[in-house]
């Protein structure tokens, strides 16, 4: 099956959807076991690669890009509704 998510760095806990993923669709990338998208993921948006607790850092490019504001389950959409900037609070 063709990859539909991209993991940019091995440390990352989120991946980038290469196209829109439907609810329940298998997310596939090289080097990981496929898992289901728990909600619709818009193209180029982030999907959680594992469970992320509230207050945990969101890692993309191998670096911290945000902090989660609530528990996020593996397969959930990760965006402004469940994270905040470490620099500037919303």
């Amino acid at each position: 099956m063709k990859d539909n998510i991209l993991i940019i760095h091995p440390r990352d806990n989120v991946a980038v959807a290469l196209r829109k993923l439907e609810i329940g669709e298998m997310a596939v990338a090289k080097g990981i076991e496929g898992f289901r998208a728990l909600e619709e993921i818009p193209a180029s948006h982030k999907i959680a690669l594992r469970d992320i607790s509230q207050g945990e850092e969101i890692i993309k490019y191998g670096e911290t890009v945000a902090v989660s504001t609530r528990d996020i389950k593996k397969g959930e959409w990760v965006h402004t509704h469940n994270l905040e900037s470490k620099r500037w609070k919303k």
Partner: protein
Amino acid sequence: MSDITGYERKNGKFGIRNHVLVLPTVSCINGVIQRISREVPEAICVTHAHGCGRGGPRDLEILSRILSGLVNHPNVGGTVLIGLGCEIFNTKNLLPLIKETGKPLEVFNVQEDGGSLRTAEKVITAARRILSEISSQRRVALPWDKLLVAMECGGSDAMSGVTANVAMGAVSDWLVEKGATVIFGENTEMIGTAHVLARRAKNAEVAKQIEQMIGRAEKLTQEVMGDLASVVISPGNMDGGMSTIAEKSMGCIFKGGTTTINQVVDYGEVPSEHGLILQDGPGYDGDSMAGLAASGSQLMFFSTGRGTPAGFPVLPVIKVASNTRIYKAMKDDMDVNAGRLVEGQALDRLRAEMADLMVRVINGEKTKAEVNGMDVFTFMTVHPPF
């Protein structure tokens, strides 16, 4: 990998083009420049919106550095400089900064040389004479350590930081390995990444300069944007899946690769170090390109996802599309399709293709922006005009 060639200058620099530049000190004489460009299309005739009305020391420093940087640029073989006469930074002020280049240079002033029409006639004759004079110059082997390549991104989309900038980062690492120098700027797009970049500095002093530069950019953004600072990334960015400025910034700084940062230079300043260099310049494409050019970059890679055609007057700009859709939609503007990375293309293969294209461009092959004449010339100012 074939060898690269260029034009050796008397000051030890190497150009990858041999342009004749026609440059005004001030916007009041843009009409004269346009007249000349119609008569001598082989010359690079640039116009700009600056040159007077901003007398503060920082704006004068930038103005003098950008104008002299263009005349001194290694891709320029000779220059006709045109002033008006009464402007705040005239040809007499500029001359001490450019007379050491060892390249043909002629200077005219519209108020002293008979007005716009007669000055244009004189410049046309001078430009043709310089074109003829430098046309006999031949390319010689260009050592890799004499090459400075700029990395720029603009009109970014959510894939810019995933495909195009990642591919340009791989090219950056490859260039540094070859002994070349790579430079990138856009300090607003580094906000949120100070800890990442400072960790890669060659010593504590450079690390401190990086933190100060990004700190100033962040402070300025908050001063200007107020409560809106948290959305300094645009709604379009958010629609594309970028959630924070740090996330957007990581995708941006990836274009410089992963090597040690050896120096931080001011806007338009010429680096004295090799390897990876950061420039303290703005994120706005046109202003950023001018600063990177004045620093002496002979060549630029420029990633874009939304699709900007912008090039720069004296240096070839290689346009890297971040997605296949925009590559196809703007085929005449794009040189590389990095969108293939999400379609199964291996990164090292794309990097090798981009390096091959770069060698051909260095050796004379024209980029799309060069062929199309997409030159943009504007530069940073820090105060409103008086």
